[in-house]
């Protein structure tokens, strides 16, 4: 059975939860990809004098109880000699109004067009930390947006490696059969028998230290792809075993088509509906794997942000109790994964209502 992409999408959107999840994802992706426009601070901004500053409060009602344009106060840092902790309190002497679509740091749209407007910003001299700052005084909100660029794309990019390999491997194994099939399946089973996370951290630790962040990003994608392909290939192989008995495959063979041609052109397209479901359900697991790796310090490295390595800081007991804003990336991971899962479940119900995979 084949379905047009459009049909599946329309049916999926009929589900209230799924269409909600879809729009949540659209907003998330739009935000992270326009991070330079939305964020009030650049990627490499850091102000060591305001480490662990709490989120700036934005006021719309002024001290006389009247409605006013949104404004905020800066923080004054002081050291509490009794608790040995740094305290922040608002400096009520000067207001800084919050501005929208105003001029800020310079950047380039698509890397070419120079621009300096930002969605949200604050008057000169003011500091606007929507979600507080981290240990280096970096704006959490801006970093969440830049980190999302990594966390939300890693999964998709890993799919582009994992799925072709899995499809081809499963296709060849199932179609050729016999000894080839036996050996190929034993290897796939062996990869599946290694606890996935153990394999993940071992592979990540093999990466040499002196890599640029782009290289590291690329290699982490390759590593993630290495984890999922085997189980995927096994399912594809199972499907190919039944597809290859079909008459039109025999016909193609009778025309003298080569094995690889038959596998790629005639057998594999039949697995499309399964592949679509598997893709939407694999992306979230990759998002989780990347954030887990980065959380342990084996994935994306500082100073680059990813949701996982931002959450790493929240592990500290002091941070977890008195700086809850550091937990924000965890909520975003949760929302993204939940949205993908809901869409995946709905698509599966649409494509294959009797599916047993839950």
């Amino acid at each position: 059975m084949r379905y047009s992409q459009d049909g599946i999408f329309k049916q999926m959107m009929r589900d209230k939860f799924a269409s909600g999840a879809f729009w949540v994802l659209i907003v998330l992706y739009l935000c992270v990809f326009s991070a330079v426009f939305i964020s009030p601070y650049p990627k490499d901004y850091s102000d060591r004098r305001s480490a662990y500053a709490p989120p700036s409060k934005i006021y719309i009602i002024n001290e006389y109880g009247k409605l006013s344009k949104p404004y905020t106060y800066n923080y004054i840092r002081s050291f509490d000699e009794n608790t040995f902790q740094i305290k922040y309190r608002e400096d009520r002497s000067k207001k800084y109004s919050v501005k929208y679509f105003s001029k800020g740091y310079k950047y380039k749209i698509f890397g070419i067009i120079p621009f300096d407007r930002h969605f949200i910003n604050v008057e000169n001299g003011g500091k606007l930390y929507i979600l507080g700052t981290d240990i280096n005084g970096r704006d959490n909100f801006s970093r969440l947006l830049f980190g999302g660029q990594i966390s939300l794309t890693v999964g998709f990019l890993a799919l582009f490696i994992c799925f072709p390999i899995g499809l081809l491997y499963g296709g060849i194994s199932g179609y050729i059969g016999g000894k080839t099939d036996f050996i190929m399946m034993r290897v796939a089973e062996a990869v599946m028998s290694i606890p996935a996370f153990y394999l993940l951290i071992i592979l990540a630790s093999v990466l040499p230290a002196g890599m640029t962040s782009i290289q590291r990003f690329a290699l982490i994608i390759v590593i993630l792809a290495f984890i999922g392909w085997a189980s995927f290939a096994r399912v594809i192989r199972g499907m190919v075993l039944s597809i290859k008995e079909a008459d039109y495959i025999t016909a193609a063979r009778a025309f003298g088509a080569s094995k690889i041609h038959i596998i790629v052109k005639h057998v594999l397209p039949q697995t499309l509906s399964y592949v679509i479901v598997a893709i939407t359900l694999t992306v979230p697991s990759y998002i989780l794997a990347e954030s887990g790796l980065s959380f342990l310090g084996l994935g994306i490295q500082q100073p680059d942000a990813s949701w996982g390595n931002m959450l790493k800081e929240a592990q500290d007991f002091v941070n977890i109790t008195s700086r809850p804003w550091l937990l924000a990336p965890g909520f975003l991971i949760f929302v993204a994964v939940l949205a993908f899962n809901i869409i995946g479940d709905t698509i599966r119900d649409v494509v294959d209502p009797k599916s047993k995979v839950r």
Partner: protein
Amino acid sequence: MNLLIYIIKRFIQTIPLLFIVSIIGFFLIRLCPVDPLGELRLNPSISRQTLEAEKIRLGLDKPIIVQYGLWLKSFIRGDMGICTTGEKVSDKLKERIPNTLLLAAAVIFFTWIIGIPLGIVAALNKGKAIDRILTILSGIGMAIPSFFFALLMLLLAVKTGLFPTGGLTSYNYSSLSTGGKVIDIAHHLILPVLVLFTISLSGLQRQMRSNLLDVMESDYVKYARAKGLSETKVIFKHALRNAVNPLITLLGFEFASLLSGAALTEFVFQYPGLGRLILEAVLKSDINLVMASLMIGTIMLVAGNLLADILLKIVDPRVEAS
């Protein structure tokens, strides 16, 4: 007799599997440009003799194929070398494996006694509010990252002071009575078990729901109903038994994902399990320990699947070894 042949057949099948895993693992780790004894050399408390013995055991001056052979030989004999701290790897593993098994057993126990009834409830009320709510809750349970949930639980522990914030035993553990020791360990287990339980519960609940729905459609259930049996009898005497069978296979997978998934939770809670051991070994590039715990983790996973298969064969004798 039939069962015995099945067990032997399945057991023999696992041997080539473990062999391939050992090859993959060994060469992956040797890809790493780290001197396997580098960290040992830096540790002043390790004697020269020990270092020499390790060098000979691993055959570091020989080609890599020979090294693999030597490693395999000593692994089968149970000699896994020493860690960078100078302790024997096998001692360290003996200390950690029971902890991981304890955690996994507790999680699986709670998942089953709570997940199956919830699955039944959802299936019997298909499409009603309670089913909808359970679906949403299980969706949330599946989406929450284990380490993030663990952090939230840690926050709870720190804020309320009701739970210990990590480890498996209190500092005064050795002075406690036997009963006190059990309570102490149980107290430390609550949060890590809760985290892992929440995550694996969702999968089991959904699976049970869809299994039962499938079985309820089958002919023999229709027949049982037509015979005039009460609905309770139809469900609990006829439908349920067959709905549970696929879950036994799932048990093996669950064990596997617990081994993997537990690593992050163990890390956050400082729980002395196998997952944290391999993580620390990786971070300290302790090659002997990494290789040994990778193999042990795999053996445990394969053994878990094997046990699940045997259990399924006992429950459902129609199953054949492929």
